[in-house]
């Protein structure tokens, strides 16, 4: 079975400083991994996805994530936080080629201070 653990329920950064949101996964099979962002009272927006191609994945809005099989991690980073990045972030794992069974992490709330 697949699962993800988001290591921080809340991360606070200052505007212009780097962002690191941590995600570890567990999977018996080759996984597909996704990061979604959810702004207040909005749906989930796909930031990026890993599906067994390049291990460093670039997404929208300057975010990127690196798939590290040896560490079973898929951490999300951004070099410089913007106020508009304040939101809830979800790491999601699926078994490769089974996008019906999305296993969500508990979410990390990102706060950006001026």
């Amino acid at each position, binding site marked *: 079975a697949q699962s993800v653990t988001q290591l921080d329920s809340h991360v606070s950064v200052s505007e212009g400083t780097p962002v690191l949101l941590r995600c570890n996964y567990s999977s018996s099979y080759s996984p597909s991994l996704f990061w979604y962002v959810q702004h207040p*009272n909005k749906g989930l927006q796909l930031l990026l996805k890993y599906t067994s191609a390049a291990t460093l994945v670039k997404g929208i809005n300057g975010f990127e994530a690196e798939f590290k099989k040896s560490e079973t991690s898929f951490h999300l980073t951004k070099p410089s936080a913007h106020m508009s990045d304040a939101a809830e972030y979800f790491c999601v794992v*699926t078994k490769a080629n089974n*996008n*019906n069974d999305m296993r969500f992490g508990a979410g990390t709330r990102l706060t950006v201070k001026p």
Partner: protein
Amino acid sequence: DAMVIQNPRYQVTQFGKPVTLSCSQTLNHNVMYWYQQKSSQAPKLLFHYYDKDFNNEADTPDNFQSRRPNTSFCFLDIRSPGLGDAAMYLCATSSRRYSNQPQHFGDGTRLSIL
């Protein structure tokens, strides 16, 4: 822009009074999903349609039902809402089932129960 549209964005109903939530998509995707998201929690899959093939999650209460009259539309019916059903309901679509394609989400309907 191709998208997933949920109506209404906010819905208030009375305890025990049936309610229907609507989702439409212009992506022409085969798969449509309904999720329930309670406050500060990850989304929980209720069921999905692959074309007209309905797939219920094992722990989805009987109180929740769905209809998909055509490719573009999908409805969530709650027969007798209880206070515990107050939540955000998210609709999502995917181009293919059993693939590594991501799901695309609407902005959700926030349901309140009086």
